[in-house]
């Protein structure tokens, strides 16, 4: 019964992929879309999609590569469609509801500043930096994931990094 075994494989693979990568991929998406609930939706959709394509993605590495691409692409299109909404939401959320201890407040400010700075970048630069610095992919892996050239990866990474260093100079200096 090849059909049944394929279906079992897809379900089992889905659970393994979920256990290993759910949190990491949601965090990746948060770097791209900022909003956690949106990121959860995006990654959930990506998992549903990878399940549907399991027949073509039988090995773990291929499936993970597909998941990453799906998360990046879906994050990007979510951003486009919700650009106005999220900008509004970000403004609303700006005063953080947990003042708490100074140190915790500083950490929260820093995290917000980083996410805000990421949002300032063009899509591709943001994606390349998230894959490079958060998922720790090599330039070649990023090129493969995004379907762009190595040269483009290098240029997005260096431009994006330069912009971020400018935007986050306070935090970079503070800790050095």
């Amino acid at each position, binding site marked *: 019964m090849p059909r049944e075994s394929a*279906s079992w494989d897809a379900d089992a693979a889905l659970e393994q992929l979920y256990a290993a990568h759910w*949190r990491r991929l*949601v965090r990746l998406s948060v770097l791209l879309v900022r909003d956690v609930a949106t990121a959860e939706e995006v990654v959930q959709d990506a998992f549903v999609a990878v399940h549907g394509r399991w027949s073509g993605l039988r090995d773990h590495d291929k499936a993970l590569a597909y998941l990453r691409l799906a998360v990046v692409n879906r994050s990007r299109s979510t951003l*486009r469609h919700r650009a106005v909404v999220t900008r509004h939401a970000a403004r609303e959320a700006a005063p953080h509801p947990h003042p708490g201890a100074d140190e915790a407040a500083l950490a929260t400010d820093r995290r917000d500043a*980083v996410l805000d700075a990421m949002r300032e970048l063009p899509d591709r630069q943001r994606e390349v930096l998230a894959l490079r610095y958060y998922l720790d992919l090599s*330039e070649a892996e990023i090129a493969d994931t995004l*379907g762009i050239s190595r040269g483009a990866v290098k240029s997005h990474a260096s431009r994006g990094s330069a912009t971020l*260093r400018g935007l986050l100079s306070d935090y970079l200096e503070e800790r*050095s």
Partner: protein
Amino acid sequence: MTGPDDQPRDDRLAELISDAVSGVEPAHRLDDIRNRTKATTTMSSRRPWLYAVGGAVIATAAVITAIAVAGGGLPGADDDPDPAAQTTPAAEEETPTEEPSSPAPSASEPPDSGGGVVGVYFAGDTPAGPRLYREFLPNTDGTEPIAFAVDASLSGAAQDPDYGSLWPTGVSATEVGSGDGTITVRLSGAPADLPSGMTKDEAKLALQQVVYSAQAALGEGRVPVQVENLDGGDTVLGQPVAEPLNAASALKTLSHVSLTSPAEGQTVSGDSLTVEGVANSFEANVIVELQSSGSSGSGGGAGQPFTAEDWMGDKLFPFSGELDIANLPPGEYVLTASTDDPTGGEEGFGAFTDSRNITIE
């Protein structure tokens, strides 16, 4: 991970970025995902494997028409709805920037009014074998028009039952994008080899469904389409896709007539019915007929000619006009647009037709 010739990572930046999401603890969604994958598994066979063949057959008909109107184009009617106008066959190399002045196809613009209508190319039967018809579909959920068009084209989600997709079930586009003068369509589930039961011509036409739909939805002219088979290989349906695909000759790919408006199943009222479409027909004559598909009435009559804007060239030209429906009894009708074939099929293929079932209130 850092490759041998990678730029060095900025560890301070990496630390800041990783730290920014280190506190994110996503809710668990495995059950939601499982529920959805169950649903998609059982629904995966909903697509027809091949397009439906044949047009509507009218047993009895009362023909009641029409006013011939030379097509000057109505406001909002797209003036170059054919993305492949004057294009070369896919096999030939041609740069897409050759005619920057030619108006971009505007399939994302609705022919009448109302937002979010996207032109999608489907396969349907003609006297010349399967060809592509363009149908405008409502895109209500705000999907990118180009992604919507490619998805609809692959799945065959046409409103007109005469249309469908040549693609096997289970093929989907995981990414549709554009940039650097190329449209990229990443397909998953696409067979690398020619499926049994499909001819080479059908495989080529299936790819042209995607090429035409994507180009029209993007609206930037004849941008080459790079199809990637995510399941590996440089072929899809046995056709090479290593190089970007161009739109093939319009007259060898498209039905020579395609109705834009009215839409399939549309209910119309009032004194006149606006008919719009594109065609390439002898001396620019397009025969438009409205026939009752009810049991009353008898006989058939000659349809009335509309005039398309032109007919010389490897493209389809817009036509439009008004039919007087003031004195028609309410009921079900079939609107048919045909190319003019003065030879009655003696030369060439015979007339191309496109039809719509409509209701007159």
